[in-house]
């Protein structure tokens, strides 16, 4: 029995892998997980006001904010957005405000030489990013697609947007899988790790092409001709009436204040 086992197998193992730095893999994985997490939380929305109305009003508000020259209107829009924001969940408020503060700070620094203009512009950027953030976090992506279709946006555009959003999520998951695999297989010091990065990017690119083909075939098999159809009627409740009234007031106040 003892002869059957070779000597090397009986020798005590004494292998300590060399320590290695893989901070860049961790960082890449974390940023991918953030995208996936972001996509997941962004999809929890759909409360209260119907999305078609919300999308239309947000677009109008964005145009009005950027076109407005009156401080009073900017303050009014600010007060309105703060009211909407105060009704949201704490985590949502934090992520929306983080985006808008970063954007407006960046604007302020960029436009610092023109101090008079830059302050107003920074506030406008703050309001616009907040308005867009509120829409993104309170509406499901697929219902935004529905809303876009109702506003006669070309189907091709909706198709690209819809697919891109979905595949950002799927491909990030795929890429994070590849990074995990790279880390698991890098026992000890792996000098070729950085060159594997291009491999990860290449594989994700090839995979995306493959997936695109597969999806096209699958959709054709199911009878998709590139034309979107919306099922279900527009619903309109009490919350929608209040929301529409608030936005109508804002639009009217814009007209009134810009005339003065």
């Amino acid at each position: 029995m003892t002869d059957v086992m070779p000597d090397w197998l009986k020798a005590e193992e004494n292998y300590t892998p060399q320590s290695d730095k893989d901070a860049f893999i961790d960082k890449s994985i974390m940023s991918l997980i953030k995208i996936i997490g972001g996509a997941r939380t962004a999809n929890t929305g759909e409360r209260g006001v119907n999305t078609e109305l919300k999308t239309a009003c947000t677009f109008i508000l964005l145009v009005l904010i950027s076109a407005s020259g009156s401080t009073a209107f900017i303050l009014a829009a600010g007060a309105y957005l703060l009211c909407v924001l105060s009704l949201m969940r704490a985590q949502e408020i934090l992520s929306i405000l983080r985006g808008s503060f970063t954007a407006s700070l960046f604007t302020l620094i960029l436009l610092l030489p023109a101090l008079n203009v830059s302050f107003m512009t920074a506030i406008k950027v703050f309001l616009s990013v907040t308005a867009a953030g509120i829409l993104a976090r309170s509406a499901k992506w697929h219902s935004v697609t529905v809303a876009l279709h109702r506003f006669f946006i070309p189907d091709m555009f909706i198709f690209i947007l819809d697919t891109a959003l979905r595949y950002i999520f799927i491909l990030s998951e795929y890429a994070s899988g590849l990074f995990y695999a790279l880390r698991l297989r890098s026992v000890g010091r792996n000098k070729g790790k950085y060159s594997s990065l291009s491999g990860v990017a290449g594989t994700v690119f090839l995979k995306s092409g493959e997936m695109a083909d597969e999806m096209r075939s699958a959709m054709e098999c199911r009878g998709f001709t590139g034309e979107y159809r919306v099922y279900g009627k527009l619903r309109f409740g009490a919350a929608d009436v209040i929301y529409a009234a608030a936005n109508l007031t804002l639009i009217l106040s814009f007209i009134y204040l810009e005339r003065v």
Partner: protein
Amino acid sequence: MHIPDNYLSLSTCAVMGAAMAPVWAASAKKIKSEITKEEMPRLGIGAAFSFLVMMINVPLPGGTSGHAVGGALLAVLIGPYAACISITATLLIQALFFGDGGILSFGANAFNMAFILPFTGYFFYKFIKDRAKTEKGGYFAAIAGSYIGINAAALRAATEFGVQPLLFRSARGRPLYCPYPLSVSIPAMVIPHLLLLGAVEAFFTAAAYSYVKKVSPGMIYAGGKQKIKAVYGLLAALILLSPLGLLAAGTAWGEWDGAEIKSMLGYIPEGIGKGISLKAMMPDYSVPGLSGAAGYILSAAAGASILVIIFKLLGLIVKKNAVKADD
């Protein structure tokens, strides 16, 4: 009762701020250990409520005006320590964005309205409630607590105004800051509060207490149902009612601007004339280019929302602390 900048000397402001520091520290500690993250938005709603109540000015005989604070009500609903922090946040927003109450005198205003009022009010509320345990007893305790609380705060503010001419005079013997001595400031502030504003505060307290007790008793007793939507409804109603504050045309006692004080005294005290003046974003709750009422509604909505948002975000920090404590 909002003391503007330059009515108190810098040293008075510093003393009041220093006196308030341990109160803030104790309140923050108490909130961290006792308030859960689910309860944090309540503090925001409380702060928003107080903000809105303070906007509704009541005209007083003699051409001045005054307002309720809602401090004792908050102390009853969320506890005196939480009320202290809520009202402090309210005063800060008022001073920074709306120019109501000074930045330098923030410590003094916080001492009067965020410390004296809720703690005195709560002490008397508790004292009476422990002895009269019926439902009517609870109402009476809340009413009495709020009446005594706001009068204590008014007396405190009047004392701060009144000691200025005793302590700070120019070389020519003229007062540097608030010109009226204790013999004028105490009757001028305390009598309207004893006769009218105390009753207004008690009315707001009783009305809000009974509303909350009816629609969302969970905010008063542990375990009762909580209807946060109904309370938001109350806030929305107060926002729409806020222009009522414009009916009171007079300036509150001790909150005059330079021109007003010159017409009363014939001169402007040096500290007031040459003191700091910070321009708020929406001074006196008005928006340039909008009518008074519209400006008031906008200010009310913005101020209340900011307070609710601040406390919702603070709730995230409390949550993190709770997780750390579990580890």
